[in-house]
């Protein structure tokens, strides 16, 4: 089983305040891994460090056994790692089709192509249509991203992440702010479109976690409390203590 992501003793601090303190973790291919923990535990910061947005003060990151520590965000994205955001970050004035197409253009390495018209490229069109179908976005194809409901924008947020056909998917609280009724269908959607892929997801909603993940890591105050399967975590006393009084 190939190791897709390996974090070795990661540290990250700002102006003397340490947010991540010695994180070590391995994610295997096909694994469905959730990262949970109280607010301020450093979960999103961890994602920022993995994706190259922040540079770790100490430690190393290996993607497909390749040392990517210090690589820029765009390089890491091109190596097959894609993430979604807790606060929706799409292209508001572009249509859903155009949003997905942006990811496709990058995936097909046509970002700097200036000798042909975008609308004439059959390859880009075909691939975009394929992804739109795959990601169930055909109904909202021509809607502007900013005109959609919040729930649909979250769907687009995840879709944009997946449009790159990444080998490692990072989802940062994908269901944040989505109302209870829609969450069930949304989670089902995520389950189907990420089926068989390596997934790491930050979540607060434990139902979502139990639905999507088979392994869980608990983060608290920048350190890993424990890693294990669902049952192991449920029974773990330290985890219960960390969450105590936080309902």
């Amino acid at each position, binding site marked *: 089983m190939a190791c897709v992501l390996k974090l070795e003793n990661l540290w990250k601090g700002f102006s003397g305040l340490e947010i991540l303190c010695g994180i070590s973790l391995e994610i295997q291919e096909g694994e469905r891994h959730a990262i949970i923990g109280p607010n301020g535990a450093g979960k999103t910061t961890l994602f920022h460090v993995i*994706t190259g*947005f922040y540079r770790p003060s100490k430690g190393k990151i290996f993607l497909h056994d390749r040392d990517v520590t210090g690589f*820029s*965000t*765009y390089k890491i*994205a*091109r190596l097959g790692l*894609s*993430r979604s*955001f807790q606060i929706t*970050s*799409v*292209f*508001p*004035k*572009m*249509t859903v*089709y*155009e949003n997905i*197409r*942006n*990811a496709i*253009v*990058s*995936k097909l390495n*046509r*970002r*700097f*192509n*200036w*000798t*042909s*018209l*975008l*609308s004439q*490229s059959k390859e*880009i*069109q075909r691939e975009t*249509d394929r992804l739109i179908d795959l990601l169930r976005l055909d109904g909202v*194809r*021509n809607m502007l991203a900013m005109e959609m409901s919040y729930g649909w924008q979250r769907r687009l947020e995840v879709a*944009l992440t997946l449009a*790159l056909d990444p080998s490692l998917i990072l989802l940062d609280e994908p269901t944040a702010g989505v109302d209870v009724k829609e969450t069930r269908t949304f989670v089902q959607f995520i389950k189907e479109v990420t089926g068989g892929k390596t997934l790491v997801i930050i979540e607060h909603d434990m139902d979502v976690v139990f639905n999507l993940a088979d392994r869980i890591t608990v983060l608290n105050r920048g350190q890993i409390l424990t890693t294990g399967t669902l049952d192991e975590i449920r029974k773990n006393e330290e985890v219960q203590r960390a969450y105590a009084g936080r309902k």
Partner: protein
Amino acid sequence: MNSSRAYPIGGIVIAAAFLLLAPKILPAMKVHLATEVLIYALWAVSFNLLFGHGGLLPFGFGAPFGVGAYATALLFRYFAGIPLLPTLALVAMLGFATGITIGSLSVRLKGAYFALITFAFQMFLYAIALKWYNVTQGDDGFGVTRPSLYLPVWGNISMTNIADVYYFTLAIVFLAILATYFFQKTPLGNSIALVRENDVRPSFLGYNVYLIRLTVFSVACLLAALAGGLFVFFNEFVSTAVIDMNVSMIVLLMVIIGGSDHFLGPILGAAFYVLVQDWLSSLTSRWFLIMGAIFIVVVFYLEGGLISLIPSKRSQVGATPERG
């Protein structure tokens, strides 16, 4: 169904006819104005490639224009008989190089900082132009003569007649603006636009945001330098007036008043500026102040510029193709 054509075809035909027949139907003075409008239109379009399309607002966009102007003037002066088209091509490349130089340091910054650092670079070049009297003759400036145009089949076409100057300028400007229009519709043009729409997400999608911004900056500078070259070609004169602070304000005025959301906005703004300036300056020597006031009013009350007053279908960032 082509939803990006926002204006009725009739209007375009009339405009085209007018442009082609201008030297025949207008008196010489007006043909001069028309040529000026064309040159400023190219400059304004290049500005808007950077601003409206790329989302980067520069206050120092007089720099590439001035560099293009001075380069052309110096080439005309020191290499008498130099062929016209290769000169303009060289000047355009020089503009691109200027863009890479200034851009490599500037595009790391955003917002007001980007605007001001480009302004600083322009003032730096202005200081050089002003003080290097031996070469540039400072604010006195110097005159040049237009070389003739050599075309393979036609041979030498002299450029002494304003009608010839007009048609040559029309041809170059038209081709350059057309190229810009299609450039915006290429995948690279799309990369530039999406970085404008969201400057964080693209890098997570594999886009090198810095390089994309540097590219649009350099291409815009290339076109601006070309406009500067045409300016000297037209006026047969260069001085620090092509690169001083006024110049930064002029191109800003044209694009903001014309409208930066639509591709044709800057062209409208250029026409507005040249024609209104011509009219106002015969009334008062303080016409610049009035222009400045109009600018402020537009910033407050007419965000889409003058072109937003013309009824049309909304022009989108790109057309979404039907399923096929």
